[in-house]
């Protein structure tokens, strides 16, 4: 089995790709880890879809402010240069293509860049979508952060999503614990292999005809 990298290492890897000056939305869950690894020499502005730019880290326990939370409803802080706005303005910012990067989790990503991350389609599940569909179609670059495989070993990179879609053809790049994949007109292109992972292994794990970056 190929060497995998930890979730923290993956967060650091993604953070390294976010350029100075970028405006970024980090989705709920694992993607929020990316905030901890943003290079200190870069000024990166975090957006939270509940209405804020320049969100800062979580506060000290005695400085929790119920009026200052992120999209995951966790307490956060305000950095110099912050701005507040209402939900319509916040989602206009997303939908209008003004965010540079968003990082999202995924159940599945298809080779044409379709994303499924909001519902497993289980008949008894209670649905909930939040801002996932807006994030998926809104940012200039949509990065997915995910394990390559589910717990039962099924690949999350697929020919076509079987789970309900979040967005069509919207994913730019997929960062997994095994490798980094760009979504291109020719399908997934492997741009980086972690540890001793090989292209052949990835092909076997996913069953996809993966190309290697030139």
């Amino acid at each position, binding site marked *: 089995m190929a060497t995998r990298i930890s979730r923290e290492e993956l967060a650091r890897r993604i953070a390294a790709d976010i350029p100075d000056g970028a405006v970024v939305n980090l989705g709920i869950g694992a993607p929020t880890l990316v905030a901890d690894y943003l290079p200190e020499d870069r000024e990166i502005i975090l957006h939270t879809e509940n209405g804020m730019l320049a969100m800062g880290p979580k506060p000290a326990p005695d400085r929790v402010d119920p009026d200052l939370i992120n999209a995951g409803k966790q307490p956060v802080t305000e950095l110099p240069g912050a701005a507040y706005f209402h939900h*319509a303005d916040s989602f206009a910012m997303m939908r209008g293509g003004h965010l540079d990067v968003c990082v999202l989790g995924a159940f599945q990503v298809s080779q044409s860049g379709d994303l499924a991350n909001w519902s497993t389609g289980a008949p008894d599940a*209670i649905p909930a979508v939040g801002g996932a569909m807006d994030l998926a179609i809104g940012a200039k670059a949509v990065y997915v952060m995910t394990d390559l495989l589910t717990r039962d070993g099924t690949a999350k990179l697929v020919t076509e999503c079987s789970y309900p879609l979040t967005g069509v053809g919207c994913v730019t790049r997929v960062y997994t614990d095994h490798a980094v994949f760009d979504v291109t007109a020719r399908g997934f292109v492997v741009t980086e292999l972690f540890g001793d992972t090989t292209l052949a292994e990835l092909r076997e794990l996913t069953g996809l005809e993966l190309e290697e970056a030139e």
Partner: protein
Amino acid sequence: MIDKTVADIESAVADIPDGAVVMIGGFGRAGQPRELIDALIARRLQGLTVVNNNAGNGDTGLAALLETGAVRKIICSFPRQSDSWVFDRLYRAGEIELELVPQGNLAERIRAAGAGIGAFYTPTGYGTQLAEARETRRIDGRDYVLEYPIRADYALVSALTADRWGNLVYRKTARNFGPLMAAAATTTIVQVDHIVPLGSIDPEAVVTPGIYVDRVVALGERAWLRDGEFIGGVTVEGAPRARDHHDARPGGD
């Protein structure tokens, strides 16, 4: 003279009838009009349609309203949460109807109602289950879904400060849906910490002009503020914080 001040929270919601469509502001605890919701619960209404981002958390606020059976239908983006057990039970029992709307479309549909827009084409949700029954259109090479306004009979909103005309300012991320819902409802009822004299709010910083507000009720400063300054000492839900070891000081209370 215009004076939208209402003396007490009960009279603020006294005329909401059975079957009303009620928008309730807030995202998490931030901007949630907790006291207005409690006053609404006390009305023991039936057949309400509620518009909110979520479908209630824990056993308070919107969840408590659902628990009373007052709500026939909820329009929201994110009902399922770790502590949405009240909604979960009602939904599984078929006792509440759900219209699930992507969060940005929810916000824009509420905005459209207030702005007199008849419908709009949004890219959000195109090609997904949530757009299945909807018209679509390709415009300049991009695919869009047609969405319609969401209007309400009443909006319950929480803001920081009001004047007697109903001009409002909010505080930090508590702004969220308030300005949109205030404009989309026939009658907008707002709870605030303080009502200040007309002319005290900077005209450049008014977020909701009074034209969108019908009633304001002042409830006093919330626990995490003192004289308008943030003092902390509460949980993210606004409850007094249980002290941990780091806080224990000799002789401290």
